């Protein structure tokens, strides 16, 4: 059977690994890097540039260089998180016809799926160059807290890149798989994953090769980008007070600030102070202005206090759902580049009462885990299996916009659950069943996955006609819903394959275009 590669499609960087002799191996890209920036640029002549080459032209070509497409994928333009994010991006986000958030690159609207597909295609080429064979299948990782629409959109990005995505794997789970394979002991581990754009916490029990996820929580809008933003604001606010100019209004200056902020943040993980040096950052009335100052670690940590505090609630919820106390956790696995920040490590230490594990590379372990999962599917790793959970409540909208949960968050998948509902009107002849996903008690505040109608109900007084709704979720998180009238057995069913907003035709057209 042909090989399946494992890809960590990150907000900031991506990484590809493959299983060789039962061991996951990270593959170097053509530039010699073990990770590749998740960046895509369109040149003036329409050429697409991906990875390090794209990052290099970020400053000179900011409006046509897209980074962090993962923060937009599978989201609506009017989504509160998207609106907040937009104001700080050097490129333009626009609303697609279906309301999705797309990126406007030199007057061509492009979907985040298409942009991510360029990154995935690059990773595919990296693997093909190394292995010397054509690759058509992959396991791709996503934040555990991604909803179904975001997962489907990631799958579509794979299809555009010419990859059949055999599994969408949760990032913290992937990290645990790679770690657990190296340290074969029965234990409970907490995976604390703070990446470029998202925060996930997962608690797993490893028992004789079975990786059982006990609970997952997270924050899809908390990551390294937000810490960079805090530094950008710190620098820009000081500059504004001094010179009366807002550097954030100028996309080139903003891009330089962003780079400097990221560099300062990384340096402050090992040093106590760092210099920010941005000559000719703006033109003032009396000549050019420069931004030169020293930044201390303490300043950064104070400025990031609210961000650091947001790490606590998901961890507490995950512990409670996993029915664990911090003392039950044997190992805390730190994943994602942001966990190099001492203040983040300290937070994790305070929550779980123990130091995070050293000796794993937080940038590579997720891709390695994806490669391990390909081995589970391919039969190379017979004695290993993963039991993951669904991170969100799934349910049906009932009278008063209430969310009636059928499958609870942190239920192990695959799973099946049933619930009985009654009509609200006399002689009601049909019911419309609307499916939602999310934690809110009001259905409309959650993600709507689909709707279907069960008709030809037997006329009866309200409340007398009963409909049993059954949810079946497979291991990939694909939901199949059946509704049947109790007594008559009249049934309707629908498979909810969350639509990522692109039609099959669009995906095929984009795939064809990219293959050229």
């Amino acid at each position, binding site marked *: 059977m042909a090989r399946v590669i494992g890809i960590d499609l990150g907000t900031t960087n991506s990484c590809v690994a493959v299983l060789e002799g039962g061991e996951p191996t990270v593959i170097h890209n053509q530039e010699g890097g073990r990770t590749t920036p998740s960046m895509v640029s369109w040149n003036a002549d329409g050429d697409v540039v991906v990875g390090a080459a794209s990052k290099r032209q970020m400053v000179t070509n900011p409006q046509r260089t897209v980074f962090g497409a993962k923060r937009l994928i599978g989201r609506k333009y009017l989504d509160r998180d998207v609106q907040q994010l937009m104001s700080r991006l050097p490129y333009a986000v626009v609303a697609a016809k279906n309301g999705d958030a797309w990126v406007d690159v030199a007057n061509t609207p492009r979907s985040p799926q298409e942009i991510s597909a360029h990154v995935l295609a690059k990773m595919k080429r990296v693997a093909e160059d190394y292995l010397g064979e054509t690759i058509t299948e992959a396991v791709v990782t996503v934040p555990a807290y991604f909803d179904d629409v975001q997962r489907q959109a990631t799958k579509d990005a794979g299809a555009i890149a010419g990859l059949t995505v055999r599994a969408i794997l949760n990032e913290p789970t992937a990290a645990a798989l790679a770690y657990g394979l190296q340290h074969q002991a029965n234990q409970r581990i907490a995976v604390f994953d703070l990446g470029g754009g998202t925060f996930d916490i997962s608690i797993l029990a490893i028992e004789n090769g079975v990786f059982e996820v006990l609970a997952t929580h997270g924050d899809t809008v908390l990551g390294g980008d937000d810490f960079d933003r805090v530094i950008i604001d710190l620098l820009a606010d000081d500059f504004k007070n001094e010179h009366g100019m807002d550097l954030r209004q100028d996309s080139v200056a903003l891009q330089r600030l962003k780079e400097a902020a990221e560099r300062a943040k990384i340096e402050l993980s090992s040093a106590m102070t760092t210099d920010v040096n941005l000559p000719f950052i703006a033109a003032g009335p009396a000549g050019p202005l420069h931004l030169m100052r020293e930044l201390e670690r303490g300043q950064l940590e104070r400025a990031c206090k609210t961000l650091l505090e947001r790490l606590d609630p998901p961890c507490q919820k995950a512990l409670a759902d996993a029915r664990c106390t911090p003392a039950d956790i044997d190992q805390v696995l730190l994943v994602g580049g942001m966990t190099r920040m001492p203040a983040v490590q300290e937070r994790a230490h305070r929550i779980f009462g123990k130091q995070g594990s050293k000796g794993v590379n937080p940038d590579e372990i997720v891709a390695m885990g994806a490669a391990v999962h390909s081995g589970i599917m391919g039969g190379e790793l017979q004695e290993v*299996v993963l039991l993951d959970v669904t991170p969100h409540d799934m349910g049906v909208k*009932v*009278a008063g916009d*209430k969310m009636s949960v059928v499958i609870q968050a942190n239920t192990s998948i695959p799973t099946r659950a049933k619930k009985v*509902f009654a009509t609200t009107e006399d002689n009601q002849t049909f019911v419309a069943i609307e499916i939602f996903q999310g934690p809110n008690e009001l259905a409309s505040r959650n993600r709507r996955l689909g709707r279907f109608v069960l008709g030809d109900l037997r006329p009866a007084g309200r409340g007398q006609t009963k409909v049993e709704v059954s949810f079946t979720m*497979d291991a990939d998180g694909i939901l199949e819903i059946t509704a049947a009238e109790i007594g008559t057995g009249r049934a309707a069913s629908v498979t909810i394959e969350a639509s990522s907003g692109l039609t099959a035709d669009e995906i095929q057209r984009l795939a064809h275009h990219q293959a050229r």
Partner: protein
Amino acid sequence: MWERLARGPHAALGVDNAASAPEIHHAFLELAKVYHPAKFARMSPEIQKLSNETFLQLRAAYDQVSKAARARPPAAVPARTTGPIPTRPGAPPATPRATGQVPSLTRTPASSQSLPRGAVPGTRASTPPHGIRTGTPTAPPARPATRMPSGAIPTLRNEEAEYATAKDAVARGAYQEAYATLEALVVQAPSSRNRGLHCYVRGRLFLAAGQREDAREALFDAKDLDPSLGSIVDAALAEVQRRRS
């Protein structure tokens, strides 16, 4: 596997009726290594569908058997109080029925997926046309009245007095005694407060019997049911933890 599934949940898992919760869990995990759908992810869609269905049945069997094992009273342990171990007249046999409804002592209605939320008769708010609402009279009552033979139910003098008696026994560390009182109390007044204390005492008894995993489950249930038990539950959990290391 289908053949085993057809022979009932215990046969499917390959465990006997007296298996403990950790034994059942272990059996399930070993089967998952073979039958999990991820193992068939690269095969034809038909095989994927079939493997998914098989695994769902296996999980249903596991859920049923492990729930029954957890609802079983803790193994008899030497009581800390003097005198005979109080055994409730008409108590259910230690081995659970293989099939059918096992009264769930340890689950809140909110976490039980078979019970719709808001299944309260008479909740009929004004509703939009063609909406649907939760609530069904077909849902089983939280505690079937048929659980114990009639006449075996001790008459409840006073719920508050019973609870206070149990609480007092708990304070003295007389968990067997408290358990007997609470077993009767939760049958007649299954409030979350009463069930919470019941679970706590179960947890204590499991702990004394060295059944750490069962103890943990029961203790976490207790906290879910009655958050005011938080501090004593945490103390007991810390003890579970100490036994582990």
